[in-house]
């Protein structure tokens, strides 16, 4: 028998572990960025008091990010959770997007609407891109094939930056939506019950 929860426990566990990993990775990443900015600005906050601490946090938290991500991926494939993302139909995305902007999007518990499907898949891909470009920056010689795939060390840094930017934009939208529909938050902690 299938448990009648909205969010199964492996999903909740990996989600909250990922919150920790993401905060650590983005915070320490901003500290590292500030040592040699790609653009004409610095981040006002960062994790780690100086570059060495920022790197140490970044290269420690990457293990949590990657291992937790792999566990999520394996669970998602094994449990069939991944099917909730598909299909993504452009027409459905447009319709749901329009409904969302009119604050009229029907929230069906246990089902991802078309906008959610697109955003969740998008942020998973951004996360994958961040990890792969990050590995290219960390090991441009030993993992030269990966670094070459990104067009070299220099470009990999920009890819890494924009993957982070994409993840941050997702987090903003994600938090905004939770703030607008707060009843979605408790089931992410307790699991909730399907009607």
């Amino acid at each position, binding site marked *: 028998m299938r448990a009648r929860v909205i969010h199964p426990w492996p999903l909740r566990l990996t989600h909250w572990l990922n919150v920790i990993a993401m905060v650590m990775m983005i915070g320490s990443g901003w*500290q590292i960025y500030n040592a040699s900015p790609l653009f004409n600005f610095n981040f006002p906050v960062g994790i780690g*008091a100086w570059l*060495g601490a920022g790197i140490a*946090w970044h290269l420690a938290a990457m293990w949590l990010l990657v291992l937790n991500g792999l566990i999520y991926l394996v669970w998602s494939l094994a449990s069939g959770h991944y099917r909730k993302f598909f299909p993504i139909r452009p027409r459905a995305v447009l319709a749901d997007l329009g409904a969302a902007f009119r604050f009229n999007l029907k929230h069906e518990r246990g089902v991802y609407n078309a906008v959610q499907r697109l955003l969740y898949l998008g942020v998973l891909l951004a996360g994958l891109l961040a990890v792969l470009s990050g590995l290219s920056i960390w090991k441009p010689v030993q993992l030269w094939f990966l670094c070459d795939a990104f067009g070299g060390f220099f470009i990999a840094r920009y890819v890494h930056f924009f993957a982070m930017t994409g993840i941050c934009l997702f987090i903003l939208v994600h938090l905004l939506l939770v703030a607008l529909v707060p009843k979605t938050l408790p089931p992410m902690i307790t699991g909730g019950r399907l009607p």
Partner: protein
Amino acid sequence: MIQRRSLLLRAMALGAAAPLGGCNYEDPAHPDLADKFLHAMSAWNDRVQEALFDPRTLAPTFRADQITRPPRFNAFYSIDQAPVVDAASYKLELGGQIQSKTGWSLAQLRALPQHEQITRFVCVEGWRVIGQWSGVRLSDFLAHVGADTSCKYVSFKCADGYYSSIDMPSALHPQTILALDFLGQPLTAPFGAPVRLRIPIKLGFKNPKSIIQLAVTNVYPGGYWEDQGYNWFSGS
């Protein structure tokens, strides 16, 4: 609402002023719990990098027209404070597990086969430059002086007080050289004269300049930045 927002802003300002108080590697002599955790993870990352290191994988090489000009100076002091070592009286001191510990003059180093490379220098800060270096393969030199290459580390002491160390497999890599020339000319003071390590399979700070002593040892030698929290292996 306004009150709550000002509280949030104050909390953010506090966060900016003291990023995760304690978790900072600020005082290597007095590590706190966060420092110990970061140390353990850094040691784990050293082991992962040793396992990942393939001695046959070469760092990418570049064309002469890709060389960064003018070259970029970087050290823990400003360019006018770089030490000037007298080339005529220079002798590279040798220590540790080496059979023949007689010092080496620049002329003796130049008499060994010279190898040239145009390689990328990647700084731990994130920037990279491309330069041309030539000099003696460290593996050739270690063989010449009868170094015990079963030891774990090769350590370097510099005229400016800098020090660093590398693992033996990286020391024996064909692109690891004791560089004497930069851009076809003898090294100048701010760029590591008279002898610097050029190791394109590691980050920039693992390329010590103005080396005055080289030793082979099994006792972990650390390094100037490594002792403050940079990852020791720092392979590329």
